[in-house]
């Protein structure tokens, strides 16, 4: 494991720390079934990055079909990069048992997986993708990106690693639960992946899994949908365990003097996220159980009476309600989208303050906004369902709440913009990603407005406009913030920095490509092109004059993959070869940097529990000497 490097480069303080508190643990206890939040954070990080890559690959395969409908799929072209990059990663990790080597092997394994997924009669008879397979890829891309990629990375990895350090806690409040949460997530991921291998393939009813479709396609136990549901139950359970842990940790283990209004914004983001996960996920767990009952026990929770499928009367008791699923799903899924964005906002706030060398402008209003945002996110869910038969009263309620919820986002974004003013801006790689987050999230958020008004949602609902809207928020939004976080905390984790040149190549390449991919979606959406179309809209007259964009977007996606390769190589090369740096490399004020030595690994984060004397972002305080005042040092002024 790469943590080998980490221990090797450990500082003296940390070695003492280890010595004081812990006898040497076995390999398994230390790296695999570890209860240390930092190790678990890294486990989450690696797994979720791999899942992100996998989700991206599924999409690249789909984009082939969208760009060149009905043309044979060149599977090898998609497999080769994995093999090559896997070999490179093994190479830069120096052919020894290490985290890098493991990931290299996994990447090659993923190449094999992609080979499997790119061939076979039940997927690509005569090399041409089947429509049902397209649907599988779409459903799994959405699910994997959201539940196995971004949330575990934003919450499981960053939350776990950074949050306890930032509040001066020795670990999470329930370390064993933390470990359980990771392994339950892991099992959920395996179940999801496994579903590709069963007869009939994986789930194919979209990541939203609307019944009756999800109930009746490949029914019975051996349907991919069953695996999807079981996988979801695991993932939800994992999130629940995690959120209990996060909230308790924040409230109980914060350092002396760290009052709520002295929290770094990232901690606030994680704290609110914890509540969203805690209270929004259970209804989906319930819905998952109900759908499992529908599939396995033949109940009719989501099946009304009188269904006729392919000319046959569907054998069931009837009496159920298909919209119930949608309500329960969106009751989760709208808060869930804020789970995707809040940690990202937290990361961006940390990096922007650090690299403008000035306090966060409007910290308090940002905190109130994020709390309000979290609260409101529970009562907007039906804006996903405007076209399911809503009268004026209910639709007015939900569009009003939707408009209201956009205000705190506007406030947060405004504060971040204004924070730039008067700063002394350092344009390093993490800062570039964090800065790009702002306009990209801006586009994504703004395009939410016409969707949030029920009248203008009529032409736009279920078109590529929606796809464009949320990809702008999650891909160049959240994913960029997560990249920023990786570049930013990498020195904390490894004691080395990532290569700046490669970082900048990665940034500019991704920035351009993201827009090439997602802006055309808005154009297609305004033209009325529906989403989830196997042939990208070829059948439809209204799509004809925007069809050429399909190829543009696909090429954008493939080119972007090349820039991600730069990132992967950078990541693993820097673990071994990156420049060694001081423990507070960025001259930051928060406890994660200032009170610990870098990199702290194994149990025990602090030689002595820190005490906090002031707010989180005291940069460039006049008369304070150096331009930053760590939270654990009393201010001179």
């Amino acid at each position, binding site marked *: 494991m790469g943590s080998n490097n980490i221990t090797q480069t450990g500082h003296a303080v940390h070695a003492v720390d280890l010595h004081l508190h812990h006898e040497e643990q076995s390999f398994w206890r230390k790296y695999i079934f570890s209860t240390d939040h930092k190790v678990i954070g890294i486990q989450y990080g690696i797994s979720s990055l791999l899942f992100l890559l996998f989700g991206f690959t599924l999409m690249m395969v789909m984009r082939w079909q969208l760009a060149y409908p009905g*043309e*044979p799929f060149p599977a090898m072209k998609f497999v080769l990069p994995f093999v090559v990059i896997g070999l490179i990663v093994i190479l830069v990790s120096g052919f020894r048992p290490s985290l890098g080597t493991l990931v290299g092997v996994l990447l090659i394994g993923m190449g094999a997986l992609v080979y499997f997924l790119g061939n076979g009669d039940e997927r690509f008879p*005569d090399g041409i993708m089947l429509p*049902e397979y397209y*649907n599988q890829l779409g459903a799994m891309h959405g699910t994997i990106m959201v539940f196995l990629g971004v949330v575990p990375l934003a919450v499981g990895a960053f939350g776990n690693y950074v949050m306890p350090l930032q509040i001066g806690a020795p670990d999470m409040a329930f370390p064993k639960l933390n470990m359980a949460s990771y392994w339950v997530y892991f099992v959920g991921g395996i179940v999801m992946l496994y579903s590709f291998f069963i007869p009939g393939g994986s789930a194919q*009813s979209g990541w939203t899994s609307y019944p*009756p*479709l999800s109930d009746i396609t490949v029914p019975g136990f051996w349907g991919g949908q069953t695996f999807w549901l079981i996988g979801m139950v695991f993932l939800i359970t994992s999130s629940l365990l995690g959120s209990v842990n996060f909230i308790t940790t924040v409230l109980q283990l914060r350092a002396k003097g760290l009052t709520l209004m002295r929290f770094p914004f990232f901690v606030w983001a994680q704290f609110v996220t914890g509540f969203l996960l805690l209270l929004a996920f259970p209804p989906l767990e319930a819905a998952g159980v109900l759908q499992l009952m529908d599939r396995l026990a033949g109940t009719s929770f989501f*099946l*009304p009476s*009188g*269904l*006729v499928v*392919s*000319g046959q*009367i*569907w054998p069931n008791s009837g009496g159920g309600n298909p*919209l119930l699923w949608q309500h329960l799903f969106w009751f989760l899924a709208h808060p869930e989208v804020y789970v995707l964005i809040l940690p990202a906002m937290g990361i961006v706030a940390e990096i922007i303050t650090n690299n*403008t060398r*000035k*306090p966060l*402008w*409007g910290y308090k209003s940002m905190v109130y906004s994020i709390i309000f945002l979290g609260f409101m996110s529970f009562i907007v869910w039906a804006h996903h369902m405007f*076209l*399911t*038969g809503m*009268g004026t009263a209910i639709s007015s309620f939900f*569009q009003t709440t939707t408009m209201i919820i956009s*205000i705190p986002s506007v*406030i947060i974004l*405004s*504060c971040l*913009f*204004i924070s*730039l*003013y*008067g*700063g*002394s*801006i350092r344009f390093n790689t993490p800062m570039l990603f964090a*800065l790009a987050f*702002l*306009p990209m999230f*801006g586009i994504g958020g*703004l395009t939410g*407005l016409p969707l949030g008004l029920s*009248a*203008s949602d*009529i*032409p736009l609902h*279920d*078109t590529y406009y929606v796809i464009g809207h949320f990809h702008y928020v999650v891909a160049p939004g959240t994913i960029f913030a997560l990249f920023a976080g990786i570049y930013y905390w990498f020195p904390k984790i490894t004691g080395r920095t990532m290569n700046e040149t490669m970082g900048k190549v990665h940034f500019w390449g991704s920035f351009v490509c993201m827009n090439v991919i997602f802006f055309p979606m808005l154009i297609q959406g*305004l033209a*009325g092109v*529906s989403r989830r*179309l*196997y042939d990208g809209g070829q059948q439809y*007259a209204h799509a*004809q004059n925007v069809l050429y964009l399909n190829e543009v977007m696909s090429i954008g996606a493939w080119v972007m993959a090349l820039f991600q390769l730069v990132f992967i190589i950078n990541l693993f090369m820097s673990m071994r070869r990156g420049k060694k740096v001081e423990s507070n490399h960025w001259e930051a004020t928060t406890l994660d940097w200032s009170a610990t030595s870098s990199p702290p690994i194994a149990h025990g984060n602090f030689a002595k529990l820190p005490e906090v004397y002031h707010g989180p972002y005291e940069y*460039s305080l006049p008369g304070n000497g150096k331009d930053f005042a760590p939270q654990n040092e009393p201010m001179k002024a």
Partner: protein
Amino acid sequence: MEEFLNLPPDGSQHGPALDGLIGIVHWLMFALFFGWGIFYIFTLIRFRKSRNPKANYAGVKSHFSNYLEVSVLVIEVILLVGFSIPLWSKRVDAFPAEKDALRIHVVAEQFAWNIHYPGPDGKFGRRDIKLIDTDNPLGLDRTDQDAKDDITTINQLNLPVNKPVIIDLTTKDVIHSFNLPFYRAKHDAIPGTSIPIWFTPVKTTEQIREELRHGFSIAAAMKKVGKVVLPQMTKTSLRKGMDMRDQMIMQDVTDSSGSSLVAKGDHLNAENIERIIGAGMNEVSNRSVANLEKFVLMEEQKTGAGEMIAGKNEALTEDVVTKLAEAGVKEVTARQASYIDPFVVMEQYADKSGTQICAKGDPLTEELITKFAEAGMNEIVLAPATPTEIACAQLCGLGHYRMRGYVTVQTPEEFKAWYDQEESALNPPAGDATSGVPTDSTSTSAVQESQH
């Protein structure tokens, strides 16, 4: 703004209001984006480290952002109260009086739209799921008095212009979404409930088509002419365990009793290879799969014996390729076909000598394209043959992408003519024995409808 956003043409009465709202929201979006965008770029340049080495602790002192946030809120309230809510209420509360409107039932299924008109009596006949079969996808009970005159069609919705239409929407199986992009109508069809929607078409399909006129470059189409190398017949010796699915079998193979094992045209996959070997053969003639359907021939093709294989402008289907392979043709001149969706020509065109090439409304064929090229024309004007369509906006299974129906909005006279024709096909005036089952109207293609 609406033009800038490139919204599709709109033929409904309420559409301009919806489009207008989309336009206004986008104004707000652009204002916010460019406002903040300029501020952003300015600060990035002005406060870069090399220009401003020391940060200012206090930063911005003014509270302009508060005013900004409040004004965003105010604008949103205006959008809600002034636009969105009234517009929505109009869609779901202000249904036209039954007597002024045409009422239709639409029943979706995987993957088609069943349309049910009540007929002259204005009453919908009873539908019963037990009666559903391939000939009667709606399960209409024709013995019911009200059902006798009901017209049913599949994927073909005819509407008179300027008359409000109320559609009761439901589905037999999964959730679909009834989507008329050119009439700004979209609503989910939910099994187990019937949901009414309404709109008034104010433009006929014909008019929409006029708005969709666009140029088509014959010159560009002709640039795609080239030599196409055809796959050749070969003989392959077979071994067990081989898999050559990209090869097509070029002969029929039967077992000793004469029943067919594989047919000409089948793929040479592992299963078929096993069968052939099982029949005691170890060699088969084959050619590689061509997948050249997108090409059309630029010259006639004959066998050595002078027998016709395929005419000019014919597509290189597998069948044609097979025949060419058998005839030993190695290479042909062909052109990549230009269109997928059918288009019609929107002008009358004549060649230099004045001979008419096509009339307005003629479907664009590969043959026509060649003719235009030969007449030395560079550009013609086209429009989609069936622009007004019913799309399905909700994922509904593997055929979701091809769940396409047609709306044909006609003048009242045309509509009446169509209605009467359907009606008389149903209940022929004189005792015609073939009556009873409604005709499937998909054959009445929209192109012919609107041409007259």
